[in-house]
């Protein structure tokens, strides 16, 4: 036995040595090549001159605009009409009505706690003067979610009914999810014009996959026994679907809706780049004016809104888990505080109020039910009974609408409520700006920021920029193809070569290397900062809990909000772009490090410790190797997020492909913007596939999957 493991060890070691030597040689050759060349490597001019992708796209666009614009215009105008209608309603109704529309469902679904939180959110929108943009964002998001759920549900049901359709949809859904969202913001712009309509359509592409997937799996996971018993009672196929399968898969579908809401919110904010209104536009304007306080207010509005919708939709999907009303004694404080006397005293008036409210609601509802029953019974007795019963069961929903009508009635006939009262405004803009300003003139901070900027630029960014842009393109291409061959296979190697050739032929080789270099620098920094944080979190539960809250918040925030803190402390420039990318893309690496390390089963570390391994040894020799797959997944996600961030960094001085996209947009040169956008996607796809394949190999080697 011993000799065998020795042998394996040795062969592994020699294999490792060979790998390292190859990597070293490849690197040295690259270094030599890059010092040989003068200036950035250029793709052969004959190729870039002939391969005028940009012109083809623009010609195609002109052709489509001329001949098919009317089709897209009709679609766009329908969506626009609906959106304006919804927006008008939200903006021109009395503010109390809108607030009530939002707050009461939160109370019904999530209890008093969510109700109080949602009132705070609504107040915050008004208080910071973001009432209009917030509601515009809500309108855009609401409409996209509605459309997503409608079409996604239908597609999901179809998937669940036909294996062939499911097989067809799977790669489509994969592509939809891998593509960074802004790639279809552009085509949407070019078919549907600017503003709400293209934003909603792009959001539909972006946010629909989860609902399709979760509807499909939900329906497919309905237990076979249930289906059997339903069939044996003689249900037809349609009855089976609508009476058994769909109702049983509702929790899964609700989870899907929750994800759709979150994704839609993220994209709707980003859609300000194609002229959609809302908070996104506010944050963009604030960034342009370097007004940190303003940008912060916008960012917080989005964050609070995201948390509110998340909790609200989760509360719906967790309907069953809620305590029955006779067990639930506490409405505001955690149930576990029941043992404290003071908590009980605080809760008594609440539960009393709750009871009274419930009785009032019941009385009102049953009164309405009786009236309607009597009225309808004049024509048809059984329908009257049914309607009466239907109404009397909904003793929360009916009073809710009564309240709404009452408010609207008062507003129309008695006193005008109008917009959010100005006296209630509480701007946090100035204090934040002042605080930041006082920090940024602090000499210690100035030297720190300057030092950091100089360090990152001189030691990381510039050498890598120069290195990557000066290596001849054919060498880089060969290295990537070889990597693709080793990790995935010959087919992927060819695909990689073709994709990179495409980038080169579009004439954006240099820009893509600059993008690659800033992504790599960002990812390295993410590792350097994120892994230690992950390790600490894996050892200290309290730290982990705090960190998780922070990371949750970070992941709900749309990505160009990350430009704000960076802009405030470091100004504009390429280094700032890198720092923003690091802040945005660090959560997965922290999370997955801590997850990977805590998942290593206790026995392994126990064994290691009993053999006298120190903490560092255990970490180094046992835990880390076993956590590698998890780490690589973290790396993979971080890379993808870093690429996605490249599209917004030009706002604070980022360069490379992102800037090309911006230039394309500003000059209405769709081809140029699209080529650069595709370039980012292709780079992301190549690196994504290579790392994923590598993880798979690692997991196989560790015997984690068979």
């Amino acid at each position: 036995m011993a000799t065998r493991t020795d042998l394996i060890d040795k062969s592994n070691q020699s294999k490792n040595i060979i790998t390292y030597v190859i990597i070293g040689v490849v690197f040295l050759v690259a270094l030599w090549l890059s010092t040989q060349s003068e200036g950035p490597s250029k793709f052969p001019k004959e190729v870039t001159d002939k391969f005028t992708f940009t012109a083809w796209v623009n010609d195609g666009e002109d052709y489509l605009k001329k001949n098919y614009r009317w089709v897209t215009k009709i679609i766009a105008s329908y969506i626009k009409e609906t959106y304006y209608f919804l927006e008008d309603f939200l903006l021109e109704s009395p503010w109390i009505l809108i607030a009530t529309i939002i707050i009461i469902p939160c109370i019904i679904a999530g209890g008093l706690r969510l109700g109080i939180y949602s009132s705070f959110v609504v107040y915050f929108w008004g208080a910071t003067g973001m009432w209009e943009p917030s509601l515009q964002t809500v309108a855009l998001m609401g409409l996209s979610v509605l459309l997503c759920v409608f079409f996604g549900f239908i597609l999901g049901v179809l998937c669940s009914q036909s294996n062939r359709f499911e097989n067809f949809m799977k790669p489509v859904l994969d592509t939809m999810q891998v593509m960074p969202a802004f790639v279809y913001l552009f085509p949407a712009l070019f078919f549907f014009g600017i503003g709400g309509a293209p934003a909603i359509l792009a959001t539909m592409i972006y946010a629909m996959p989860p609902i399709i997937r979760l509807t499909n799996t939900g329906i497919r996971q309905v237990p076979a026994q249930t289906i059997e018993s339903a069939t044996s009672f003689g249900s037809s196929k349609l009855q089976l679907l609508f009476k058994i399968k769909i109702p049983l898969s509702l929790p899964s579908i609700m989870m899907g809706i929750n994800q759709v809401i979150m994704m839609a919110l993220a994209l709707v904010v980003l859609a300000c780049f194609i002229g959609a209104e809302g908070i996104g536009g506010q944050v963009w304007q604030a960034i342009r004016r370097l007004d940190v306080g303003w940008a912060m207010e916008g960012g917080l509005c989005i964050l609070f809104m995201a948390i509110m919708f998340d909790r609200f939709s989760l509360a719906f999907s967790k309907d069953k888990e809620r305590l029955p009303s006779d067990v639930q004694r506490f409405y505001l404080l955690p149930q576990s505080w029941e043992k404290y006397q003071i908590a009980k005293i605080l809760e008594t008036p609440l539960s009393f109020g709750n009871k009274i409210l419930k009785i009032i609601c019941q009385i009102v509802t049953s009164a309405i039910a009786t009236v309607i029953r009597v009225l309808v019974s004049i024509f048809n007795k059984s329908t009257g009974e049914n309607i009466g019963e239907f109404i009397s069961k909904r003793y929360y929903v009916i009073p809710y609408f009564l309240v709404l009508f009452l408010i609207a009635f008062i507003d129309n006939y008695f006193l005008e409520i109008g917009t959010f009262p100005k006296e209630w405004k509480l701007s946090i803009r100035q204090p934040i700006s002042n605080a930041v300003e006082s920090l940024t003139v602090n000499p210690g901070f100035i030297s720190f920021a300057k030092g950091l900027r100089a360090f990152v630029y001189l030691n990381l960014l510039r050498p890598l920029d120069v290195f990557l842009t000066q290596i001849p393109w054919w060498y880089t291409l060969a290295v990537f193809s070889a990597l693709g061959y080793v990790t995935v296979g010959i087919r992927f190697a060819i695909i990689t070569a073709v994709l990179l050739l495409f980038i080169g032929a579009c004439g954006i080789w240099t820009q893509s290397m600059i993008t690659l270099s800033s992504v790599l620098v960002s990812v390295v920094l993410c590792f350097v900062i994120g892994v230690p944080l992950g390790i600490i979190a894996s050892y200290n539960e309290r730290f982990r809990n705090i960190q998780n809250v922070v990371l949750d918040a970070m992941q709900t925030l749309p990505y160009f909000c990350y430009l704000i803190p960076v802009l405030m402390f470091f100004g504009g420039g390429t280094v700032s772009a890198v720092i923003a990318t690091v802040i945005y893309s660090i959560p997965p690496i922290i999370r997955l490090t801590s997850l990977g390390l805590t998942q290593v089963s206790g026995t392994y570390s126990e064994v290691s410790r009993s053999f006298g391994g120190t903490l560092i040894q255990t970490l180094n020799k046992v835990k880390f190797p076993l956590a590698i797959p998890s780490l690589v997944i973290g790396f993979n996600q971080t890379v993808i997020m870093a690429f996605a961030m490249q599209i917004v960094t030009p706002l604070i001085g980022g360069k490379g492909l992102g800037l090309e996209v911006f230039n394309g947009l500003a000059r209405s040169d769709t081809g140029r913007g699209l080529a650069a956008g595709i370039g980012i996607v292709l780079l992301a796809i190549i690196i994504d596939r290579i790392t994923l394949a590598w993880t798979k190999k690692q997991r196989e080697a560790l015997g984690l999957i068979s």
Partner: protein
Amino acid sequence: MKLSKKISALILSVALLIGSFGQANAAKRLHAAIADWTGGIITCEVAVAILEREMGYKIKQTVFPSGTGLWEAIAAGELDFACESWPSYAEADTVMLNEDLIYEGKVVGTYSGDGSVDLLGTAGIIGMSDYWIPRYAAEELGIKTWKDLNKHKAKFATIESGNRGRLIGCPVAGWNCHDQKRLDLLGIDFQADELGTEAAAIAEAKAAYMRKEPFLLYLWSPHWFFGAYDMVGVQLPDHKVCDSFTEANNWKDCGTAAWPATGWAKDYTMNYGNPATFASAEHADAKKFFEKMSLQNIDQAKMLVEVDQNGRDVKEVVNEWLDNNPDKWKSWLP
């Protein structure tokens, strides 16, 4: 089951509710762009405020980067109007406008494009652009014109520009300043840095001024920066145009004799809009208003200081100006 009914009831009722309350709005509507520099934002805000306060309009405003994309959006009717276009910066004006630009009765520009965008009239602002250095640097280093810049390029270098000097350039790519091209053509060994936004470029310049470091800055006037800091121009060569010398022609001939090797022309700025919108009888008043509107540099400069230096809200500043200076704008009303 319970859940599904609850949800469907909720959705249905919300739809009903919306149906019962959403009323068509009686106000006339226009859709305007919000520019990407403060001066442009203020000019447009003045127009928007007057249209809303005095003429019963409701204006929707959308943030949109200036550049050809904006012109096309206006031609397609996605937006109704935009304000304060600077002819030197716009590339689409020659292609899309077909009208004379008249400033105080004099023809200051002639366009013969396809007329897909309507020239609404002058905005009133007269703009100048140049490269600037702070006076202390000019005196200390003895820099009189752009020709002296190369001698002191090391003093203007930053970590990012290496051994070349650095120009805090035109912040937005869509503005077509061709900074690097100009520097190269004139043989100035400087690197043009595009910082993404006006605010970022100004912040950089402000910080350098505070530290009394030499720096080269692209900037246009009217701008509040000149009121707060003492800057001198580097006197770029006088503006000259050469037709075969464009980016599309790949800068073929003309060498250093013409734009962009020269400085900028004096810019009579203009407002522009969608032809169909402003030809309709409904918006005849708005068209008349734009023909008469003429905001003076001095007034914009005052508001710029309030907004950018004192950090106040644009709408608030503009409304205050309208309240205090009715004599200046009452004559613009149709």
